[in-house]
């Protein structure tokens, strides 16, 4: 055990304090179990087919699509931080950049993995590249997510090669140095790709004229949800990064980012969230007064199907939109760490609620006049598969934190905030 601990120590950067190996393994153990359960559940779905889920012909999209849309929105901090640092030269955000890359990689690779389980014929995924339907939002999503995942991998490699042992290999060092020069270009490419797939994910439902609750008018070929998804993703991405950094600080017991960084992230998030809420209000008013009536539907009737009442609209716009935007933007409220983190969590909750409304509520509502409200409860295989993705994320982040320079040393040395 002592030799294992020594070997483990040799992979950790010099001068960095990390938990002992047994303690680290103990931390990983439950997540590994959850990951194993997730892999088993996903294996059942791949082997026996999607009859292992509780989806059906009417609820053809379920938990997985909802969570895919959610984690990709939360992972938007990756491209947006890269954009702010490398394109807009906001150097003060650099300390969170590596975390942004890892979080982005986790979110996107997790989403792609679960999508591969979610389709009936995963081996035909390449057909989309061979026979692309340029009118389909899903084609745009597939192309951009695949390419952006590649970009994220390329952004993660320099971080990986900065590991203490890997740096000893001269060829790796040269490769890392050369790759690092490419990072600003990758940030630009990532921004372009992310802009489109975040929007296309919104467009996925917005173009469905057969689902009047989700159908939206828009600009050129893009429905309004295309733009709302981009706005909501870039508004909540920084908040999610702030929460991840705060969680890492809590678990490690160390201050990892400059004290003023959460406040800066919160301000960016708050301002963008305010713009998003304004745009969302305009969009909702147009849908209520023009789009839905024109298709023959009384929009308020959609809210009579319980439990999906108008309170969801209020929660989405005011409680998890306007309120956190206010709390994150103003110095008096954002200056208090507790309020700042709560507001960031509310902003993230808002984007989760928005994705829920657009995916689950849309499918539950009837379209045909003689149809009824539908219910759907995910199966344990669906829940466990997603639990596996969550566990994969925690494990990859933990390993990255332990063995890679995820956070640059703070000026004046590390500061312990509590415990060890």
């Amino acid at each position, binding site marked *: 055990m002592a030799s294992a601990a020594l070997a483990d120590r040799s992979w950790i950067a010099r001068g960095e304090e990390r938990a002992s190996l047994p303690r680290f393994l103990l931390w990983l153990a439950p997540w590994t179990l959850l990951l194993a359960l997730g892999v088993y559940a996903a294996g059942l779905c791949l082997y026996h*087919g*999607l*009859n292992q889920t509780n*989806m*059906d*012909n*009417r*609820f*053809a*999209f379920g938990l997985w699509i909802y969570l895919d849309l959610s984690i990709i929105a939360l992972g938007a901090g990756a491209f947006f931080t890269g954009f702010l640092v490398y394109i807009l030269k906001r150097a003060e955000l650099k300390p969170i950049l590596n975390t942004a890359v890892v979080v982005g990689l986790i979110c996107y690779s997790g989403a792609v993995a679960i999508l591969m389980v*979610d*389709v*009936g*014929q995963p081996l*035909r*995924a390449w*057909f*989309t590249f*061979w*026979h*692309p*339907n340029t*009118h*389909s*939002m*899903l*084609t745009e999503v*597939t192309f951009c997510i695949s390419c952006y995942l590649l970009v994220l991998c390329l952004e993660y490699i320099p971080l990986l090669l900065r590991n203490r042992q890997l740096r000893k290999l001269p060829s790796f060092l040269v490769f890392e140095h050369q790759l690092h020069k490419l990072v600003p270009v990758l940030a630009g490419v990532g921004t372009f790709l992310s802009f489109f797939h975040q929007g296309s994910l919104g467009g*996925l439902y917005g*173009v*469905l*004229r*057969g*689902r*009047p609750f989700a159908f939206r*008018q828009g600009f050129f070929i893009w429905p309004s949800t295309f733009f709302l998804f981009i706005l909501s993703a870039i508004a909540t991405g920084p908040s999610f990064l702030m929460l991840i950094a705060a969680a890492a600080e809590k678990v490690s017991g160390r201050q990892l980012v400059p004290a003023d960084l959460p406040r800066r992230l919160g301000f960016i998030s708050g301002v963008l969230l305010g713009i998003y809420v304004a745009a969302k209000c305009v969009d909702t008013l147009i849908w209520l*007064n*023009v*789009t*839905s*009536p*024109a*298709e*023959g*539907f*009384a929009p308020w*009737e959609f809210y009579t199907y319980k439990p999906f009442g108008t309170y969801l609209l209020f929660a989405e716009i005011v409680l998890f939109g306007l309120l956190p935007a206010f709390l994150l933007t103003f110095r008096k409220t954002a200056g208090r760490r507790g309020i700042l983190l709560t507001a960031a969590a509310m902003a993230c909750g808002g984007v989760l609620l928005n994705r829920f409304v657009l995916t689950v509520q849309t*499918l539950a509502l009837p*379209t*045909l*006049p*003689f*149809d009824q409200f539908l219910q759907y409860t995910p199966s344990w295989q669906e829940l466990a598969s997603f639990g596996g993705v969550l566990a994969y994320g925690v494990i990859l982040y933990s390993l990255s934190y332990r063995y890679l320079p995820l956070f640059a040393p703070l000026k004046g040395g590390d500061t312990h905030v509590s415990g060890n």
Partner: protein
Amino acid sequence: MSARYGMVIDLDRCTGCGSCMMACAAENNVPPLPQATARTGLTPLLVRKISNKKEGAARREAFIPIMCMHCEHETPCVRVCPQQAVEVDRATGIVMQMPQRCLGCRYCMTACPYHARYFNWWDPAWPAGMEKSLNPGVAVRMRGVVEKCNLCHARYHSAKEKAAAAGRREIDLADYVPACVEACPTSAIRFGNLADKNDPVYREANSPDAFRLLARLGTEPKVYFKSKEAWVKALAEPTFTGKTEVKHG
């Protein structure tokens, strides 16, 4: 587009016997799937019961067969399929599904306003001996792909072969009759060419009693329904009628 094949279904004649469903399943090699529920089964043609939601003597009920409506304008499933596994055949107007190219993403099912698309949740299987009764002209679909009504395309091919053998370019419509139309004991389902003004189906589709489901969505379905009952016709659209028109596209 040389033809626009479509249907007119007279709901006042439909007794809900289900013969059309059985004929559809037999013609298209739809597996029995005893493990399926009402929401996971394969029913490319599904007869649904509708009512005026009143009780006692005032209650009225009817049956409405629901299948792919073969939408003509901005066909929702065609537009969303990421890999062109769905297309509108320009020669016939039939919305075609290619199971061999289908990814099984089910986006088309989400897009269909009529819920007329079905996913193969299980491997197709038949009780021992029953596989001998399969229709050799129709390929069995595998697990993990979407399927739907294709207006008995195998019968269309047979009609084309017959026309070719006779040296004709166009088929004789008497040779192309979908299984449900053939099986209906009350002749409630009628099939024809909506582009041909001399076709009886064209005239019926344009009669005052004819209507289409959710016509205001603007997808131009080619399956029409017909009824003299006002409450049945009222079910064609949601109860609300807004005054504002939206230009689609």
